């Protein structure tokens, strides 16, 4: 975990640029979503009022870098170059090692990428402060689960490289699918129930992004918040088991590229 934190902390300019970009896009998204909500003509849309929407956007802009929905191709690159050999020579399972490094990275992002948009947002927009004390620890647990889950999904997309070598195709599909269906572009609560419920239950995508934000802005009462976090945990277990199975299968057929 320390390795991940230290590695990412060496790229200070990238961190500053990332935080700045997230903040700028925060303004754009916030204005668009507030305009949409105003156009709907009701006080709330899918349980979201203006303060909740602004909080959803600004925390979401920070959370994006913490769960790291996109932009991780390290495993795929190492498979393509054959450097994945070094991962197999460590006395730690590759999934465990990559996960630990990713949690270190997420810790660094939580400090450097989550905080700036969350501080800037309330200066210009209404903000929703949780009313129930249980929401805060539940939100923290939900963010950790989302990070692990997102790592698992990224690992699986990268691991297609064991079979395909070039992962650009799966990566584009992942970027498109996860952006829309995880709740990055708009709160999934805007969707009708017959779409949202199967999406939550049958795919891990809403658990990556929408769930922590729903928990934070208290769209649901506590039992339902808890239920959503349990669902996240179930998805974490399922995806990590799948990662282990995929890795085991990949190792059996591994061809080390480049001699």
């Amino acid at each position, binding site marked *: 975990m320390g390795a991940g934190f230290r*590695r990412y902390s060496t790229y200070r300019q990238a961190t500053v640029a990332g935080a700045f970009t997230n903040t700028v896009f925060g303004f754009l998204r916030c204005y668009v979503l507030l305009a949409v909500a105003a156009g709907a003509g009701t006080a709330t849309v899918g349980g979201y009022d203006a303060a909740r929407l602004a909080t959803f956007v600004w925390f979401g802009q920070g959370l994006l870098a913490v769960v790291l929905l996109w932009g991780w191709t390290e495993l795929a690159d190492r498979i393509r170059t054959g450097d994945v050999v*070094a991962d197999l*020579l460590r006395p730690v399972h590759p999934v465990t090692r990559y996960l630990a490094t990713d949690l270190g990275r997420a810790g660094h992002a939580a400090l450097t990428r989550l905080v700036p948009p969350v501080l800037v947002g309330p200066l210009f927009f209404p903000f929703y402060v949780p009313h129930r004390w249980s929401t805060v620890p539940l939100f923290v647990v939900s963010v950790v689960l989302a990070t692990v889950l997102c790592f698992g999904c990224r690992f699986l997309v990268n691991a297609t490289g064991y079979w395909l070598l070039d992962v650009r195709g799966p990566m584009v599909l992942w970027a498109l699918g996860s952006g829309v269906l995880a709740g990055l572009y708009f709160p999934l609560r805007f969707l009708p129930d017959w779409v949202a419920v199967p999406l939550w239950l049958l795919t891990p995508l809403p658990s990556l992004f929408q769930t922590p934000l729903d928990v934070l802005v208290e769209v649901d009462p506590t039992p339902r918040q808890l239920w959503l976090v349990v669902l996240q945990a179930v998805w974490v277990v399922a995806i990590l088991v799948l990662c282990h199975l995929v890795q085991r299968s990949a190792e059996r057929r591994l061809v080390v590229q480049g001699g």
Partner: protein
Amino acid sequence: MMTVIAARELRKEFTVRVRQGRLRRARRTVAAVDGVDLAIARGEMVGYIGPNGAGKSTTLKMLTGVLTPSGGEVSVCGLSPVRQRTRLARRIGVVFGQRTQLWWDLPLRDSYDLLRHIYRVPAAEHAARLRRCRSLLDLDEFLDIPVRQLSLGQRMRGELTAALLHGPEVLFLDEPTIGLDVVSKQAVRGFLAELGAGGDVTLMLTTHDLADIEKLCRRLLVIDHGRVVHDGTIEALHARYGSRRRVVVELEEPLAAPPEVPGATLVTAGPLRLEYDLTGATAGELLARLAGLAFRDLSIVEPDIEDVVARLYTGAPVTDAP
């Protein structure tokens, strides 16, 4: 002697697809390693050589558990490399000359610190090993520079240290001196020689630089087309492929007829220069026979292992074999 590395009928096959027409592809199975037998005892330093594509790196990857063998049996430190890979990883050190195992973004010092945690090495042991490597490999000047900014020679010294900090019983080195300059090569060789002299670490080394082998390894394994074609000392290889020591005599004045010497073949007979290959006689015996001549200079040329290995690789007939 306890066998640390054992393999019997070790095989690795790869499937390659060959184009046949616009859309058709035919599958072909290629044996990269084709029935290799190995038995390496504790403390041995073994050179594993062969031409490009002979199966050296593939063998090493099977011995370290990275690749799953297609057939045969293999055991390293009494463990099955693929099934018990993570356990084995604590007992072996591996350096792949063309790949880095260090963290690209971090200074060596941080990488070593992380390795201590990954391998769960007690702090005192770690510090003692690192101290030794720092002095033998001159690491101090670049210990705080990120790996991505190191020169190849510096990185290689860093890689060697990283492979040794957990005190491995077996060290696998895949072309550790590739691309290094003379000074770095000497540093790496000197370090490995010192390591081998202790007798605790078993070392298996693949290389294309035969000077590595000559300086470090008593035993030589030659692999070609996936099969071991020689297993023995360098001297045995010379004997098998007819390498001979050559005695070159420069004369003060021309000779009418160069002397015939039993056990030595005259290969060059110039007016002022004679060259004999020793085919049975010793250099001393030859010189005793030439004692009456007036020498200007005399030299003994040791057989060149590069020539022998080149003949072995190309399959050229060994015409001067005894």
